[in-house]
């Protein structure tokens, strides 16, 4: 099974109206080349799920500046003024979610849970409109799972079957997002033969990855 696709093919898979999860934390561990190609493609009306919107000139922040999102679900937008502006004017529907809750909602979406009870946000506006459940005299918010049409993830080393190793702090949301989307595309910084990644270091199994964009080839082109 050949999973490598060109950047053009990758871009053609992202269509208006889709929801996309994008890995990365302040753009560290974001599949930056795919994001750049999406900026160029100018596809609009997307829903973004990403822990932050980076800055105006980094990661998904560039797509915010390019007004490609009609909805954004994130935990932090403070370092990208354009996101704040779009929130204030109402141009974009921005939903803020505590970061741990966001991670857990994505994990729940990817692992078949119907939701989970978290103490995070109790007594704050985060609990508004949500079911509160008491367990052993403690109050928890019932938070629901989150999934997306597409996950765009970053891979430090990817093998040709699609196994992914994501090094150091580039891992962040990438590995859990790979569980929670119908279509998973990985940007491979380095592509190796199957069997070259230590099975202890595989962070996304090959069967979850639909397509690989091989940057070693694209950078040569």
């Amino acid at each position, binding site marked *: 099974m050949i999973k490598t696709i060109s950047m053009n093919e990758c871009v053609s898979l992202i269509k208006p109206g889709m929801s996309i999860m994008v890995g990365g*934390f*302040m*753009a*560290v*561990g974001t599949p930056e080349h795919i994001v750049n190609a999406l900026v160029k493609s100018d596809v609009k009306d997307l829903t973004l799920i990403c*822990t*932050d919107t*980076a800055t105006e000139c980094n990661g998904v922040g560039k797509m915010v500046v390019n007004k490609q999102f009609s909805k954004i679900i*994130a*935990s*932090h*937008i*403070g*370092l990208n003024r354009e996101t*704040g502006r779009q*929130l*204030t004017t109402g141009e974009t529907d921005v939903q*803020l979610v*505590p*970061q*741990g*809750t*966001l*991670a*857990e909602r*994505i*994990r729940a979406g990817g692992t078949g849970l119907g939701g989970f009870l*978290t*103490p*995070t*946000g*109790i*007594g*704050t*506006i*985060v609990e508004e409109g949500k079911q509160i459940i008491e367990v052993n005299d403690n109050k928890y918010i019932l938070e629901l799972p989150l999934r997306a049409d597409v996950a765009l993830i970053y891979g*430090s080393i990817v093998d040709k079957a699609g196994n992914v190793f994501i*090094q*150091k*702090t*580039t*891992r*962040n*949301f*990438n*590995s*859990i997002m790979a569980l929670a989307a119908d279509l998973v595309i990985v940007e491979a910084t380095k592509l190796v033969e199957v069997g070259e990644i230590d099975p202890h270091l595989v*962070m996304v199994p090959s069967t979850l990855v639909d397509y690989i964009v091989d940057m070693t080839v694209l950078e040569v082109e």
Partner: protein
Amino acid sequence: MSRNSELKEIIARRVAKELKDGYMVNLGIGLPTLVANYLPEDVDVLFQSENGMLGLGPAPEEGFEDKDISNAGGQPVTIVPGGMYFDSSYSFGLIRGGHVDVTVLGALEVDEKANIANWMIPGKMVPGMGGAMDLLVGAKKVIVAMLHTAKDRPKILKVCHLPLTAVGAVNMIITELCVFEYIDGKLTLIELINDSKLEEVRTKTEAEFIVKL
């Protein structure tokens, strides 16, 4: 060094004394980050960075940055021997699960009921809560490290006015003037620092507090 920087250094030095050997510690962005510089020699702690590592080390020398190791502000950092990388769900599992012994955060407002507001000013600034709500709820001990007032207005209030980040979550407040602790749920002044006077603390604090110096 500016006057403000001096005050922040005083606060950071005092916070550092709260960190004990073997602790897992999470430092917020800004003033709290300074705390790492004043850790006593004989105290070994591991700094947790919610973006995905334990064992946050000092910033690398210029030219030696590794773009794949960053802190929660996205700045290049290093990892110390005995550190660990993990994904965001594990990271917040550690945080929410009470495995972070101390977290140090800044605040816009703190009140008598240990409530804290530090994530938004309606109509003005909505950066998002990031990991703050989880840290406040999950860490074993929450230390608020901040300047005592903002533009001469008290920040330690009877009741927070801004949208809360967490309810009843704060354990200790350390400012350039003093240290407050919540003892049996009551805001208690336990220490004056930097030659400050009780009267000054009273003037600059709106909240009622018990004095146990």
